[in-house]
């Protein structure tokens, strides 16, 4: 339970900000501490609120320390779990990192430890969402000649999928936009940049109106839709299995699932 001596660190929501908070915990030898992103610390919490200023140098030192004590997989597990944005994930990660620094040996695969197991599980579900997005992103060719896709992933996976799309679609300009988190990544044939768009009032993410999209766009969507229907073998139909693979909440972005 939270009590008066507790310190609540509030950071800006960035990964560097979180690592800076971890740095402060060690630096100030804070015992009773919890970390929240801005806007998520509940007012009802007792304790002293301390705002953390993101400092890339401090963040780097923590990251280097982590790198020394874990495998590459263990390291990316921390980043993946962070991107889940789950409530309290910062405090789980803090305990994980404290255990990691305290232990003499590498703790990456100590699945008998509750925190290690939990971080691993969360990282795994983020990884699953990353793969889903790599599979279910559907680009549509706009009138301006770039390929545009909108997504609403459960977790903040844009930072994780950027590399995949960059190496695959190196010769076309593309944008993948997270409608929920209101930012996107844009590849301009050289680099991938983070962008924010003001989408037009009448923009409907699930339709390809000719106002914005190229003339042939709907043709290819139709061909793909037809193709999808033709590959079906009715005598093998198994909708339960189908929905297990492609959960219904993703359907609105898959042109082959539209009627």
């Amino acid at each position: 339970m939270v009590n008066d001596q507790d310190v609540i660190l509030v950071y800006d929501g960035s990964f560097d900000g979180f690592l800076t908070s971890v740095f402060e915990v060690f630096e100030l030898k804070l015992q009773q501490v919890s970390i929240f992103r801005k806007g998520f610390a509940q007012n009802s919490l007792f304790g002293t609120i301390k705002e953390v200023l993101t400092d890339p140098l401090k963040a780097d030192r923590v990251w280097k320390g982590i790198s020394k004590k874990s495998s590459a997989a263990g390291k990316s597990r921390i980043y993946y779990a962070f991107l889940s944005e789950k409530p309290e994930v910062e405090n789980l990660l803090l305990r994980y990192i404290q255990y990691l620094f305290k232990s003499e040996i590498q703790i990456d695969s100590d699945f008998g430890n509750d925190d290690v197991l939990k971080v691993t599980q969360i990282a795994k579900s983020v990884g699953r969402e990353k793969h889903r997005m790599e599979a279910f992103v559907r680009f549509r060719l706009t009138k301006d000649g770039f390929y545009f896709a909108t997504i609403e992933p459960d977790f903040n996976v844009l930072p994780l999928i950027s590399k995949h799309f960059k190496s695959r679609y190196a010769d076309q300009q593309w944008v993948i936009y997270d409608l929920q988190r209101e930012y996107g990544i844009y590849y301009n044939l050289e680099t991938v940049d983070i962008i924010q768009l003001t989408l037009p009032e009448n923009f409907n993410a699930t339709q390809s109106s000719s106002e914005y999209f190229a003339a042939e766009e709907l043709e290819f969507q139709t061909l793909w839709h037809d193709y999808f229907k033709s590959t079906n073998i009715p005598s093998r139909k198994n909708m339960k299995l189908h929905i297990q693979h492609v959960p219904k909440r993703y359907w609105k972005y898959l042109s082959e699932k539209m009627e």
Partner: protein
Amino acid sequence: MSFERTQEKLKILADAAKYDVSCSSSGSNRSNATKGLGDATGMGICHSYTEDGRCVSLLKILLTNHCIFDCAYCVTRKSNDIKRAAFQVQEVVDLTINFYRRNYIEGLFLSSGIFKSADYTMERLVAVAKKLRLEENFNGYIHLKSIPGASDELMKEAGLYADRLSVNIEIPTKEGLKLLAPDKNREDFIKPMIKVKNEIIQYNSEKKLIKSTPKFAPAGQSTQMIIGASGESDQQIMWTSDYFYKKFELKRVYYSGYIPISNDNRLPQLGTAVPMLRENRLYQTDWLMRFYGFDVHEILNNEHPNLDLDVDPKLGWALRNLGHFPVDVNKADKHMLARIPGLGMKSVHKIIQARRFRSLNWEHLQRMGVALNRAKYFLVCASNDFERRDLTGAQLKSLILQNSTSKYQKILSPQMNLFG
């Protein structure tokens, strides 16, 4: 490209291609080094799933469904009264590129009916792949069907542009083949397979000497067998499969439950159910051979020529070999852990890692996600609480079946590797 004509052709030629169940797009290593389009490194991605739960990862079409042959089990056979169509080489290229750019697919799987001759057909398939690679700078996945009887030169060229090549054996036994596909003989399938295998071996040895050796079919070869069309036993199927894996170093063998398509009295009649559960059991056996260290003869032999339908083949083996159990999860080697019913390879690896920190008990195993409902009868761990009753195989089986009926409904997909 005229939209309506392409649309019509696509419907016909995708429909005819769907009976080939292979849709894998993994195992290649073609990277996008030249800033072109596409990348076929890493695991293949399923971009969608059909309503029967099969992965959609490639644009899978026939170049044409004109065919000079008359294989009884095939919708494309000469004597079948259906609409015929043929794509132009450029049409296939355009479709592939445009689907790929929209992230619909990982690449192309191009097969064909045999028109004019084997070489004439193979030449067209190779032309599509060549155009994609050389003109479009396409680095996505390409799977070409090797046409039985195609010449060595063409097979060699095919391997330069394709990631994977496959010849479907279709009918596991010689007698079945004679009955159902009288135009075909086994040598014609095997010849291109041998050629591709030899080229891959040569490529691998040259690569060690010369870094810039052009790639040759980096994702290897595969084949498919139709299940339940010619009265064959599971033993015949899996022994054939084992032979092809070993002899031709195949990457995958696919098993496709026969889907009744005609009233030919040599075949199961229209309306006969597709043997999906049997197909699934064959895939599980295939998995046991390739990843779990089982020899095919342990699972299928003269005393036991067919797989049980009510239990998976690993459980079936364990019930016939109770002497090997219980296995101590804190001590046993990987080989024995992999034989515990209900334990997948992922759990095996997790156990091996986690037991270095502490002796594992039931709670640890459960929290790590090890499915215990079946496994618990076959293992002991750091706990005194284990199954002590001396149960016979039959008793165990009925106990397990009682507790896990729902599990068996779930595993009807050829692409699932569940033993959970």
